[in-house]
């Protein structure tokens, strides 16, 4: 296929038929269709601010081909925040812990944290740091982000002290 063509996918629980081009990244595709919570940071796979769930797995949308998402399911932080209990808890914990300063990294951080906890991640600070190691934050120094995820992990009773 060349030029502009349509792909079918589910975004935040809604069926969508939307145009893309062969080489477009999932990041640009989502932002062009008004999913502004997916942030464009480095656009080369380093910063994690564009993270989304693709068929339940956390990926960096800037290094994901939009056309290859035909028939697949995408969730962004905003959509998850409306429907998913774990994401709601993480979002509240980020606010309570002061884990947000400028907020640019937050949506990606929540996706990485949700993925970690869903994979059975424990309330373990070094493992949480590893889980968010592909997500850069230039404000907080990470301590409060780790606090927030740690708190939710403890609450989930998935381990810890």
């Amino acid at each position, binding site marked *: 296929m*060349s030029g502009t063509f349509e792909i079918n996918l589910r975004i935040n629980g809604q069926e969508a038929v939307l145009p893309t081009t062969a*080489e477009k*990244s999932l990041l640009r595709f989502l932002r062009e269709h008004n999913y502004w919570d997916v942030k464009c940071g480095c656009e080369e796979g380093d910063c994690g601010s564009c993270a989304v769930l693709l068929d339940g*797995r956390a990926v960096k949308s800037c290094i*994901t081909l939009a*056309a*290859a998402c035909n028939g697949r399911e995408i969730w962004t932080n905003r959509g998850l925040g409306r429907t998913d209990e774990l994401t709601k808890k993480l979002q509240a914990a980020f606010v309570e812990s002061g884990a947000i300063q400028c907020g640019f990294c937050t949506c990606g951080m929540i996706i990485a944290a949700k993925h970690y906890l869903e994979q059975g991640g424990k309330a373990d600070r070094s493992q949480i740091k590893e889980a968010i190691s*592909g997500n850069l934050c230039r404000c907080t120094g990470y301590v409060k982000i780790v606090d927030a995820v740690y708190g939710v992990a403890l609450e989930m009773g998935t381990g810890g002290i």
Partner: protein
Amino acid sequence: MKNFNYINAPDLPSALEALAKPDAYLVAGGTNALVDIRAGKINDRTLVNIQGLTEFDRITLQENGRIQIGALTAISKLAASDLLAEKAPALYQAACNFADPLTRNSATIGGNLANASPAADTAPPLLALDAELLLASRFGERRLPLQEFFLGVGKTALVPGEMVLAVEFMPNSFSSFLKLGLRQAMAISIVTAAAALSLDKEGIVREFHLAFGSVGPTPLRAYNGEKAVTGTEFADPEVIKQLQEAVQLDINPIDDLRAGAGYRREMAGVLAKRAILSAGREVGQ
């Protein structure tokens, strides 16, 4: 002006047919392709999506005792594999240290090898394990030892129209991988080393394979280093010293923004020592 076409290949025959066209460019996880597209390194190509070839997204212990990993297997699957943790710790450790957890969900082992970066993290362990590649084109399949696959930076022995289907090796629990990077995640390595070892009952090294990444134009086997150790007593400090000198003949590092060539030489010796000791510790020495 970017100019690309897109083809979704739902199965192997359609992938090989699409790949037979001269402008075809395979996309699996997309972690290299999207970066190269944005940087303008590739253009006027037909992107061939092969993510539908799910039969190559698996890790299998075969009846002949060999482990086969399909080219489309994500690095995160390697890092979650109990089979690899037990039977091929070198590859398991490389997967656990690969980029970051999110990138590991997308990046595939076939893509990591076919991209032929000198810093490809899965290459040294697979070289040390003496892995073999299964390649396919419209004209059939062939096998190729991995050490004959890497020809230069970004250059492989793949002929036009050919793709990597799987990688296969004999398990070796006495294998290890070490990575030196500037930080613990998302770091392109300064030096990586992988070792695979077999000892006899007297503690003599019967077979020793050593491979490096980021110290030459391709990931490489350190044959001089291997020779210095084979047939000697395991962990003999004199032999380790000879190993560290011998690997200097195997490597050809450059200065770049991550490290100088001199530092890489020094650290290749250090990692060679740690890799062999770490591989052998599993033997109960």
